[in-house]
């Protein structure tokens, strides 16, 4: 079985060709992704837009190593991510991917610092939890439990947790979906800062087209196909966005 150690650092971070994902079988068969072809490069900031059911979450699941494609090629730095087994996928998620979810998914019994430490304890070359929390502007609230933090603060802890391992890619699934505008803005600023300062390939999946302005490249998904691709000449600052 292909090992993630075989990854080629000079290759594109993701290389997808004719990627298909079919759920169910027979009558109940649903084609969630139908022939996706895509390359993603280090340091890129991508926003994937789409309505619910467009296949954007499925794409994130495949790229994030949470699921495997039905057919097609999916390489992570030349390594066959699409054909990896359970153990290699776990290893891939642990070393290469940072996830940020809509509902933060923090461990309620651990403080902000400890939620981050959870990752730094197992990662290969992590930064300290304190450093990660400073990066997202939460240096002062490190010893608070999730229940003592606001939604925006919780999401920033989630970002710190995602980037503390210095991942190759940061995947954010509707990161502001549960937040009001002001706190959502702060969260996006944090993501932008990570992308800029650490050069992490960043993918944001959202149905909120306002975020498109901060991306290098914007992909539009509908019905399992990439229906649009747009490059921004300049990236708008997160603080300038409004929705």
């Amino acid at each position, binding site marked *: 079985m292909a090992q993630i150690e075989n990854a080629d650092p000079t290759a594109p971070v993701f290389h997808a060709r004719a990627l298909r994902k079919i759920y169910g079988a027979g009558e109940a068969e649903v084609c969630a992704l139908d022939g996706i072809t895509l390359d993603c490069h280090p340091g890129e900031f991508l926003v994937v837009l789409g309505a619910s059911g467009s296949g954007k*979450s499925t794409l994130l*699941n495949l790229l*994030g190593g*949470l*699921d495997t494609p039905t057919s097609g090629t999916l390489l992570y730095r030349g390594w066959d991510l699409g054909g990896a087994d*359970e*153990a290699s996928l*776990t*290893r891939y*998620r*642990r*070393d290469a*991917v*940072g*996830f940020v*979810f*809509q*509902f933060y*998914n923090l*461990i*309620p*019994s*651990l*403080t902000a610092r*400890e939620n981050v*430490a*959870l*990752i730094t*304890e*197992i*990662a290969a070359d992590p930064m300290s939890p304190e450093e990660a929390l400073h990066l997202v502007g939460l240096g002062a609230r490190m010893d608070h*439990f*999730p*229940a*003592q933090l606001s939604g925006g603060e919780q999401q920033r802890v989630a970002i710190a*947790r*995602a980037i503390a*391992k210095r991942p190759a890619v940061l995947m954010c*699934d509707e990161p502001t979906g549960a937040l009001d505008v002001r706190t959502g803005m702060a969260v996006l600023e944090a993501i932008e800062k990570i992308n800029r300062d650490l050069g992490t390939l960043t993918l944001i999946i959202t149905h909120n087209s306002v975020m498109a302005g901060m991306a290098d490249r914007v992909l539009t998904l509908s019905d399992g196909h990439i229906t649009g691709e747009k490059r921004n000449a300049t990236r708008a600052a997160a603080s300038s966005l409004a929705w």
Partner: protein
Amino acid sequence: MSLLDLKLLRDLKALKSQAFAVALVMACGLAMMIMTRSLIASLEATRADYYRDNRFADVFSRLKRAPNAVAAQLSAIPGVAAVQTGIALPVTLDLPGVLEPATGLILSLPEQGELTLNRLHLRSGRILVGRESSGEILTGEAFAEANRLRPGDEIAAVLYGRRQNFRVAGVVLSPEFIFEAPPGAALPNNKTYGVFWMPYKELATASNLDGAFNNLSLRLAPGASEAAVIAAVDRVLKPYGGRGAYGRESHPSHTRVRDEIQILQGLSVGFPLVFLSVAAFMTNAVMSRQITLQREQIAILKAFGFSNREIGGHYLKFSLIIVVSGMGLGTLGGIGLGHQLVDMYTLFFRFPSLEFRLATPVVLAAIGVSTLAAVVGVAGAVKAAVRLPPAEAMRPEAPSSYRPALVERLGAGHAFTASFRMALRNIERRPARSMLTMGALALATGILIVPNAFRDGIDYVLNYQWDLIQRQTVFVSMIEPGPARTLADFQALPGVVLAEPVRGAAVELRSGNRFRRLAITGLPPRAELFRVIDAQERPFTLPPHGIVLSSKLAEVLAVNVGDELAVRVLDGRRPEFTVPVAALSEDFAGTAAFMDIGALNRLLGEGDRISGAYLTVAGGKWDEFLRAMKESPVAGGVVVKNRIREGFRETTAKSIGLIQMIYLTFATVVAFGIVYNSARISLSERQRELATLRVIGFSRGEVGAVLVGELAVLTLLALPLGLLIGSGFAAAILTTVNTEFVRLPLILTPYNYAFAVLIVTTASVISALLACRRLDQLDLVGALKARD
């Protein structure tokens, strides 16, 4: 079927393994209760029937010799309904193919008709009736079975110094010997001790008791005073060497059965109660979680117009189904185990038929109690759920708040890993649940200590009695006390290396209004073969004056060193005197009193006499010694130490083995049930958290560790607590075995502790692994999308 019931069935199917775990724990408690209560009912009812049908006597006495005419005097005592006189003699037996002699008691059958009291129950062969005397005897069943004797077989007996061959005419049972063992024995040894009957004439001739009797049984008229009759009997028998009458409460066979029932009574309440409480807690945990998970469903049902009563009933039904399965399993298990234990009891107790009788009222009560426990267990959760207005119930529950655990607040948390902190904080957040889980695991550990403590206690006692105290190879008793020079005859037997005399005297010891009848054992002051041992396990020299009592006897008589004790000798010249208590000795079986043999003989005033001897016999000459012994005219009884010891071991191994198996099963079930259930509930509650960990790169094993970390901590805390509780259980139960017949010391070995820890740890680990297998089914993506 209503739709709610359909939902119930499907929910149950999804929860089947958890429901099963709860039902099993409940079944254990119920099985224990049914088993013990039914055994008590079986023993009590069988005994009552047996006593009534076979006319078991109420008062008993032995005497030296009284003419048969005295029986009329005894019948005339007010309150006496029936009198049975006869002869009872010790006997030594020579079994075909068995070198070592067995001893026993031989009783007479009346010259005319059947026994009036203590009638025999024929098992096989025929009863000997009337004057016929053709060298035939009846044999007690326990001895016959142990030695494979059948009607028609021959055995040789040395009766009153004369060797004679007898044919077994029949195998019988007697209500006087339900426990067929020498008086004071804690366990039977049926290979070396038996009870026999033969026609009066033959026995009387052999023992020079023709026209006389030395054994008496009486039945009391309804309402008669036992104490008054005993006093009157003693007065009548005094000139004939009466040894003191006693009632059923001092009858060796009767008391042994009574003690057993007492022990069962103790077991029938405590353990089942604890098991049922654990089961109630588990039901509550499972149902609370189920109701939390179904908050929205409850809200929807209410929004559709289902009443609180209907919804409450739905969840109650859910828990009642668990109760009913537990009851079914428990009843079947209790009946099954009860039957096995009845079989075990036939090893000890001989009834015409000891049948398992289900204690139905108890079963019904147990079912009632368990149902109530289950209802109470879910009532709270159901109440909280139905009280929520639908709109509120459809909103997710507020996020749970945490704080650092106590150990961390005390500043000791720096070195902990994140998963360990999670475990600690989860434990502290739900203190009641954690305590109950830990309590149940401690209980599982604790109950494992009991049977091993029993076994170790018995081992200790066996070694104490037979290595520390008794160091002889054989004990030879004489039919009647004889001159001290008889010791030289014993010394001269082939292979005898050392012979030490012993003088026994039947006495009544009295201090104030407390008294006991037993034999004072007279020994040489520094006896080597039978040693008197003090509380520090050191042998000590018998003082030239005064009496040494075993500490149990001193306790019974409420005397201490230095107190005076009134002694009434029940034999021979029947002198009465007082002696000071010179010291206390320690032993575990029976009660004992010792004196310097010279001092005892002086007080008895019959000159230098001995009533037996302790002998060590050289191994090489063993067979030769035994042959000579069987022929010896002076030896009334021979007790081979190792044979008794072996018999003891065999019986204890069988009974303790079964009990141990039962406790082991129950402990495993509790440990397994509680760990599995807690892990499953925890998995359900923390699904999202665990899925998150998997997504961010934790391996399945690491997530498993987070899942069971809490349980691992609780198990580790429970183990020492369990050992403590178990030691307490063992101490409490062993003190119930603190009778005048036998006492068990509390011996707790590292092996015992290690065994308990090993079993509970293994059961916990296996059930945790089983629960962890569910992690594979964790829906990673789904758990991240859903907001609880």
